[in-house]
């Protein structure tokens, strides 16, 4: 009967109850949403480098190297020599390598100079290989394989011609107009930065930069290359190399050897360790966000307590009636707590449903924009602890109006002066 009263009482005051629930829903969505997004972002980042044992680049900080090589964030400070790459490739412990030459872009999407090893050896998620949704890998100069997000956003199809831009800004003033590329393949979506990339051969990168000096465009007419010249192009520099080892055990040994490489200063990093450093930096921000969210939630809970407390005046009549039929004061306090629980449960369900719907709606955009694959269901192994914590906080805050009901029912007796 108490539960029935609690439910019908809330329904009776559904105007204020709805507002209270709205406030709770928003704050719960914030809490669950932030928690979900940070975990999904981590998962997505980790999945991007899942198959890579080492990343080698010019000497720099591990985070910097990781971010620009794999996540296409920021720029390389320096390049490494192609010669060094070839030596690295010959290392007995190295199973595969993927060279990366960055620095150009197309409509804001990064262009990656690489080899077909990229399509063969790159692994993401649970060791999934890349798959071509349409067409084939590039087989020569001026051919491009584009990521799923690039194709979707720009509406590209196989056979279409595109112009690359020098530099990585969204707007570039120097275009490689003389070297149009043909799209030969489109990759299937991966939910990683691969989706955001335009892949061309290392030789193509060389070809479009022939005549360039120190990063400046050639003066006068850009030389057109003959077929022979194209065939004899040799890559000079790389930005980074992703390395897969034959045995994980050798990871640290190879890393040390690369770091001590004589010909030029190189850095070899473990993607996992670099990510851990990233998370450590991010933890501060995450914690601040969570604290702010917790405070927002507390504000919503206090709003709920205020609503219930304000209703107590108009409900003193109800309390008297319930006392008259034999309800004990603590049962009236419990009635208020039941209403708190109904509030909280309804809000939790609504928040979960709304968050899931919003994620489902946002997912394609997030994937296209940031190359992050966010799963739709905002539920994790520890999520129930959040809900338990919220319910506990709600009941704690609920003791304020509950205590008021208890006190009032004792003090006022049967006859209520209105």
């Amino acid at each position, binding site marked *: 009967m108490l539960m029935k009263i609690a439910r019908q*009482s809330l329904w*009776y005051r559904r105007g204020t109850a709805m507002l209270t629930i709205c406030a709770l829903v928003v704050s719960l969505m914030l809490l669950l949403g932030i928690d979900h997004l940070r975990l999904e972002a981590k998962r997505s980042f980790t999945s991007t480098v899942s198959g890579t044992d080492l990343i080698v680049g010019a000497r720099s900080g591990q985070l910097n190297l990781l971010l620009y090589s794999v996540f296409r964030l920021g720029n390389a400070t320096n390049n490494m020599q192609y010669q060094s790459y070839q030596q690295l490739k010959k290392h007995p412990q190295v199973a595969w390598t993927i060279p990366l030459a960055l620095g150009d872009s197309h409509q804001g999407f990064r262009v990656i100079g690489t080899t077909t090893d990229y399509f063969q050896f790159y692994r993401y998620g649970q060791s999934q290989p890349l798959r071509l949704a349409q067409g084939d890998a590039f087989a020569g100069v001026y051919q491009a394989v584009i990521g799923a997000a690039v194709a979707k956003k720009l509406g590209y199809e196989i056979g279409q011609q595109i112009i690359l831009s020098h530099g990585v800004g969204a707007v570039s003033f120097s275009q490689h107009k003389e070297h149009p590329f043909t799209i030969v393949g489109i990759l299937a979506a991966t939910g990683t930065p691969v989706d955001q990339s335009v892949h061309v051969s290392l030789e193509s990168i060389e070809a479009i930069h022939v005549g360039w000096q120190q990063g400046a465009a050639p003066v006068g007419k850009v030389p057109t290359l003959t077929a022979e010249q194209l065939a004899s192009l040799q890559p000079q520099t790389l930005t980074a190399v992703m390395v897969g080892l034959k045995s994980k055990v050798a990871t640290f040994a190879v890393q040390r050897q690369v770091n001590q490489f004589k010909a030029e200063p190189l850095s070899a990093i473990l993607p996992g360790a670099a990510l851990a450093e990233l998370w450590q930096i991010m933890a501060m921000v995450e914690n601040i966000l969570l604290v702010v969210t917790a405070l927002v939630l507390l504000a919503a809970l206090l709003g709920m307590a205020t609503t219930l407390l304000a209703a107590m005046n108009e409900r003193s009549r109800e309390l008297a009636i319930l006392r008259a039929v034999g309800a004990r004061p603590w*049962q009236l306090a419990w009635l208020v707590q039941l209403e708190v629980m109904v509030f909280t449960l309804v809000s939790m369900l609504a928040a979960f449903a709304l968050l899931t719907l919003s994620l489902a709606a946002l997912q394609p955009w997030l994937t296209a924009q940031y190359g992050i694959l966010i799963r739709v269901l905002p539920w994790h192994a520890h999520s129930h602890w959040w809900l338990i914590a919220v319910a506990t906080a709600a009941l704690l805050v609920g003791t304020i109006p509950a205590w008021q009901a208890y006190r009032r029912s004792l003090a006022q007796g049967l006859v209520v002066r209105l």
Partner: protein
Amino acid sequence: MTNDRNFPALELKNLSFRYKGSAAFSLQIPQLRLEVGQHLFIKGASGSGKTTLLNLLAGIQAVDAGEIWLGGAQLQPASDRTRDAIRAQHIGIVFQQLNLIPYLSVLDNVLLAAAFQAKLSGKTMASDSAMASDSAMTPDSAMTSDSAMTSAQLKTRAEQLLTALGLAAPIWQQAAESLSVGQQQRVAIARALLCKPTLLIADEPTSALDSEHRDAFMRLLLEQADASQCTVLFVSHDAALAPWFSHTLAMASLADGVLPNPQFMRLSAVSEHQQAQALGAKVAAETRAATPSAMNS
């Protein structure tokens, strides 16, 4: 009936009460006794102490001294828990107005009377098992033996009462607030009588009704109380209602605090007329010997 025939429905002995921190008002009743089925009218304006008396009779407030017995169960002095349990089972209350929880249906409002009363009888039809141990504290196990009705029986009784009170089935599922005041007061009677209480306490239940509805209300109230063999204690400032009752007492003298005559509140079914004479002119003037049956015709 739940209580033994040998017990009076209500008995007050040397009752004394004073609000804490206030010397201005005190209530003292040396003796009051109501037999099963008797109807008592207590006349008193607001401020005469009737609210205090009702809170004590309903067990909401604890007495300072003295005893209150309800059909053989000791209501006062007793623990808060016991008083609440006895009230749930043995007392029905009809307020002045706003008797009902506005958003519950008419039927649910009536059934509310049984929602908190399972504890005394030891039945665990209520949700809280914490109170189940209360049965051990029952003052008189004899009075609990036949009082527990199943929820189906309760529903049937609620429907019978509502029908008898002129409230037809179509409105049973309506929210209580959609009813007229007169209808609401009748629903309140049904709730007060649902659990076949020993005592029905009515606090100015007719003050919100016009005279036409008032008479109908009084007739239904007393009829149904008789049908349930329920003793009625009716408090009102309206002396015009006194003829409905077999016995009348004035509250006014209570407000003065100490009763001048210790016999004043004495009322016994055994020899009420003799006593009324013995109490003198002051009491006699306020005592009507009209029988309910005569008025009901």
